[in-house]
């Protein structure tokens, strides 16, 4: 998950204005045909890897979702096709819809928090003096660089029932019932911990990139706005916000996609518990499929999750590609 920490680069892609095949006058035909093939040959390893290592698992997932595959079939290596039974069972069951609704709410709350707080921190960075800005940037980069599994473990310790710092602080603040509170004992408190963790991890990306984007806003725009008599708020809504809008759109969708598949945080904090009440779709697919060994069912849930993500991704790509076209 951490890898997509940068917006896909949209640099000067179309630098290649001239035709590649003949920079040095006419050439023999064989050579120019070879030159025409070169880009495809260069891309061949990457494409082969993608088809084999990404396309095949995707296809396999779809195939598995039409099979009756439980522990018995797995051990005996038999393939039992059962048509759309898995989908029927998943879609008519109550669990799937409950988990889907939960995933959507979970994603919405997290993304709203990340975007609002991240944007505020980004704008604050732009306002600070140099020394304070560097200090805050160091803090943000540290949180950003923290590996997910390590961060999750640390949060378990911060929110530990005994000797956890959070409970101690709440107790000292006068909330004495929290002194020995077990954060993993209820659905809402588990989600609260996961949300704090995800928001803490995600704000640096939004804030630092937003700050970088604000530095590219030409100062003349603000001058013009103030000449027109615009106050701080007015110049924010007429200059800053329109300038940052494409960035905000793209980042929001990126965050939606990331939070939607936040498997590691949810799974590691409490394994989807208590009583499977904090399972979001990827965790649900894993626990149904691998944990309860209903592999076919798990695959069907996975396919449905992938379809939702595909919709989100397509929308994100539309935004990014449109931006890239405008920039070129």
């Amino acid at each position, binding site marked *: *998950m951490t*890898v*997509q920490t*940068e917006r*896909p*680069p*949209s*640099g*000067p*892609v179309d*630098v*290649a204005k001239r035709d*590649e095949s003949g920079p040095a006058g006419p050439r023999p035909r064989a050579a120019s045909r070879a030159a025409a093939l*070169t880009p*495809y040959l*260069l*891309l061949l390893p*990457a*494409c082969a*890897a*993608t088809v084999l*290592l*990404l396309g095949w*698992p*995707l296809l*396999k*997932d779809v195939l598995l979702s039409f099979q009756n595959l439980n522990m018995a079939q797995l051990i005996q290596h038999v393939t039992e096709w059962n048509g759309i039974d898995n989908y029927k069972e998943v879609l008519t069951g109550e669990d799937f819809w409950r988990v889907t609704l939960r995933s959507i709410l979970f994603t919405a709350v997290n993304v709203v928090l990340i975007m609002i707080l991240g944007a505020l*921190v980004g704008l604050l960075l732009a306002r*600070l003096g140099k020394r*304070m800005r560097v200090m*805050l940037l*160091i*803090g943000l980069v*540290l*949180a950003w*660089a*923290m*590996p*997910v*599994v390590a961060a999750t*473990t*640390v949060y378990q310790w911060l929110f530990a029932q*005994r*000797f956890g710092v959070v409970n101690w602080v709440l107790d000292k603040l006068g909330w004495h019932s929290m002194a020995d509170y077990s954060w993993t004992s209820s659905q809402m408190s588990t989600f609260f911990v996961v949300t704090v963790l995800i928001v*803490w991890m995600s*704000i640096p990306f939004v804030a630092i990139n937003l700050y970088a984007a604000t530095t590219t806003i030409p100062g003349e725009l603000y001058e013009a706005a103030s000449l027109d008599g615009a106050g701080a708020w007015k110049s924010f809504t007429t200059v800053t916000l329109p300038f940052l809008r494409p960035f905000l759109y793209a980042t929001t969708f990126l965050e939606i*996609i990331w939070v939607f*598949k936040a498997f*590691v945080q949810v*799974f590691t904090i409490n394994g989807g518990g208590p009583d499977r009440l904090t399972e979001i*779709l990827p965790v649900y697919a894993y626990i149904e*499929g*691998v944990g309860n060994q209903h*592999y076919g069912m798990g*695959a069907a849930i996975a396919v449905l999750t*992938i379809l939702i*993500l595909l919709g989100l*991704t397509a929308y994100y*790509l539309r935004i990014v*590609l449109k931006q890239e076209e405008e920039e070129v």
Partner: protein
Amino acid sequence: MKRSLFGRLWPNVTAVVLFIGFVFPVYWMFATAFKPTGDIISEDPVWFPTDVTFEHFRKATGVDHFWTYVSNSLIVTLCAVGFALVVALAGSFALARMRFKGRRGFVIGFMMAQMAPWEVMIIAMYMIVRDASMLNSLVPLTVFYMMMILPFTILTLRGFVAAVPRDLEEAAMVDGCTRAQAFRKVILPLLAPGLMSTSLFGFITAWNELPLVLVLNKEAEAQTLPLWLSSFQTAFGNDWGATMAASSLFAVPILILFVFLQRKAVSGLTAGAVKG
């Protein structure tokens, strides 16, 4: 006057509060790792450790197979990043420097691949690896990690290749270099920062990966550090000192790489190359 003082004060105060909020979890991890157990389980937290102990680190690294996990993680991560760089370099050169039919399609394809929902596909990957009798092996892990970071590597390198001025390459070719030589002697050195930053992010992803190794490799000999760390707390009950020492050991390579390499990698090398 009063108001302007307040106006100057509140951003700085907020910044300090935020700084503490972002740094505290990281600080607390290290602080707990070095504190004697007595200070960890005291009724009031010991904010600044005064007695430093390495006991927890000894305990964390003394776990069975610890060095196997370390070497497994290193092998898998470095191989995945290395393969991805080689494959991506060829592809990104084509995408950045050549005009051909379907180029845009390739770019969109890799963008889609970058968003691949790996967390959800583990059941299918488990079946594929099992049918190939490759469970508990490092090979499938390496290969899949390579694929997880490949699209990002291609797309990022594409930007870096495109940023290398075309004149430099042409000048080298005028001086008698072949295209391949021009690539090796001119473009590759200029790409060094790009290669560094992309491999950094690739390294982080592969180093962190948990869901796949969780499903594929049940035997200790084939496990990696994230799996060790995520099961550490369960295995050691509430020994937070050792757990935090384990977390620190896991996080330190990434923190160092990230904090020091990112800035270096981002600053371009080409700035002065065309002038003069």
